[in-house]
């Protein structure tokens, strides 16, 4: 417990605490979905999602929601992670692992540079 002595102390608590509750108000920013059907989970989607949550928390990223989704029919490319930015085409990352997922958070979500070589477009799906 940290006794509040100044307005700045209060601000600090507010900043930390608001990360806990942001998920309830922010529905406008970036949205990350993780494929969590049987195929996704079997391929290791859960550690991928935990890595994303952990990375977002570690870097104090605001306004990003992480949601799980069902099977999109590309089971062989699971774990699939999709990043939706407002007014932009979604980017679909395939064959994710926790390490790659962390890089997606840093490079794409924070710095705004999608990592092309891991996306569905770059995969040969003919």
């Amino acid at each position, binding site marked *: 417990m*940290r006794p509040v002595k100044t307005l700045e102390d*209060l601000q600090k608590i507010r900043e930390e605490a608001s*990360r806990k509750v942001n998920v309830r108000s922010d529905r406008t920013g970036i949205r990350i979905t993780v494929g969590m059907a049987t195929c996704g989970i079997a391929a290791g989607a859960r550690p991928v999602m935990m890595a994303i949550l952990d990375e977002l928390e570690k870097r104090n990223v605001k306004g990003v929601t992480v949601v799980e989704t069902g099977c999109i029919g590309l089971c062989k490319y699971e774990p699939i992670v999709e990043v939706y930015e407002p007014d932009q085409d979604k980017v679909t990352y395939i064959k994710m692992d926790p390490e790659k997922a962390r890089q997606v958070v840093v490079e794409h979500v924070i710095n705004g540079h999608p990592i092309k070589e891991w996306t569905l477009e770059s995969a040969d799906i003919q």
Partner: protein
Amino acid sequence: MLYRSHVMVCGGTGCTSSGSDSVADAFVNELKKNGLDQEVAVIRTGCFGLCELGPVVVVYPEGVFYSKMKPEYVPEIVEEHLLKGRPVKKYLFGETVTEEKIKPLEETTFYRKQERIVLRNCGIIDPEDIEEAIAMGAYEALGKVLTTMTPEQVIHEIKKSGLRGRGGGGFPTGQKWDFAYRQKETPKYVVCNADEGDPGAFMDRSVMEGDPHAVLEGMAIAGYAIGAEHGVIYVRAEYPLAVKRLQIAIKQAKEYGLLGENIFGTGFNFDVEIRFGAGAFVCGEETALLNSVMGRRGEPRPRPPYPAVKGLWEKPTIINNVETLANVPAIINNGSEWFANIGTEKSKGTKVFALTGKVNRTGLIEVPMGTTLREIIFDIGGGIPDGKKFKAVQIGGPSGGCIPEQHLDTKIDYDSLISLGAMMGSGGLVVMDEDTCMVNVAKFFLEFLVDESCGKCAPCRIGTKRMLEILDKITSGKGEPEDIDRLEELATTIKDTALCGLGQTAPNAVLSTLRYFRDEYDAHINQKKCPAGVCQALLSYTIVADKCRGCGLCARNCPVNAISGQLKQPYTIDQEACIKCGTCFEKCPFDAVVKA
């Protein structure tokens, strides 16, 4: 720990009594079973407002709304929604589910017309975690006031906002504070009136349960403004959940140094204690309340001296209602101009109402002053159930009045309600449909007040009793035309001479029903009929021979053997012997018994 999803389970009194605790427990267990307890948090909140649909659960980040939850639905929701990301439509609130998408709660008609200032955090935060309140900005107004404003500036700001007391009277809050501020005597006291006693009203309870820190912060700001270091919350002991959450909130605020000594390092001290009321209606009256806090008999005393001069322990005291105090931090944070822009010319801001009775969505709502009753009852409340016709809405509790259809489009504020013969009161709204007898309603509220009268002054003790006797006479078919004049005379005398607000407003229910539903009184007295079919003594039950199959069920159940006949032949009721209990009417499987 960052959770990707939050399951908000309503922990208000309404949902708790419909079983939200077992729903929350089911979520906790089921999430653990599925290994999701590190990603999905279960949070118990204050009231969402849609008590009719309880227990309610909102899941974020989607913001989707599950209604009428049962523990047995939980495994499916955890597996489908929280594990696989597919909200389970069949359990969602119907209005939020459309062909194309699932709407979040705030896009429903119930929420769209609302403006939530006092209820801003109810249903959004965990009221037992001060950090969640702080995340929403709690105690920032207190910090701002203590570090950058003088008490005069605070009072000026509240005056400019136009905030008026939300407990019923509508006295300007800033002016009240100013009176107490000018008193030289010390110590001074801030008392929070949480003795919410109107039948069917639960606004204050929900604020205390859902956002207790807003009340504490409002009290501390008031304390700084008038120069008080002690605060007392007078809350009824029948509100155990509110008491528990207030106690937790006070404890946490002290631990964080937001109550207690040297707050924000400014040398300002403020402490809050809770005093319990035993639930006497008259103790909501401020002088009776003060007596009760001091351990004396809960009786009012004449004013002046007003509590601002001589209040608790004969010292300067301000008494503000829960909702009033919960508005204060928002006014300080957003500025008096922001607040003054909401509402009508003389009534600023919003008002919380508890919507009950014959309305589809009973619950808790907050609307800007100046919203019409029609919008509240038909848009937000979803209209009258079972296709019945609206008859009247009772506003302001026992002291208020009944407003009929023709005034539904009145913009409600303190003054418009007074001119309609009702009053804002604390915000209870009881909707009545065509099956309601207005004479009976007046009798109900008067009975309540006769019970609750403290007996100190004669007009209230004796006068209300005599009025009730006359109403009894009318509803049992023994009314005379002169009774109306007697009622009116008594009512005006009580209004003019009773000692406190309870007595002075006690005749309102009779007066307002006389004003708008005089024909119903006349029908009771002259034709000995109750048009709504409520007053038992004025009903007669008959059996329609064509519909009667002669099963004999009515005769077997009649407690006074007033029904006779032969099996397979139409039965008849002996009107002399009939006591009009209505048993035959309820028992008949063929609707052959009619009442008129």
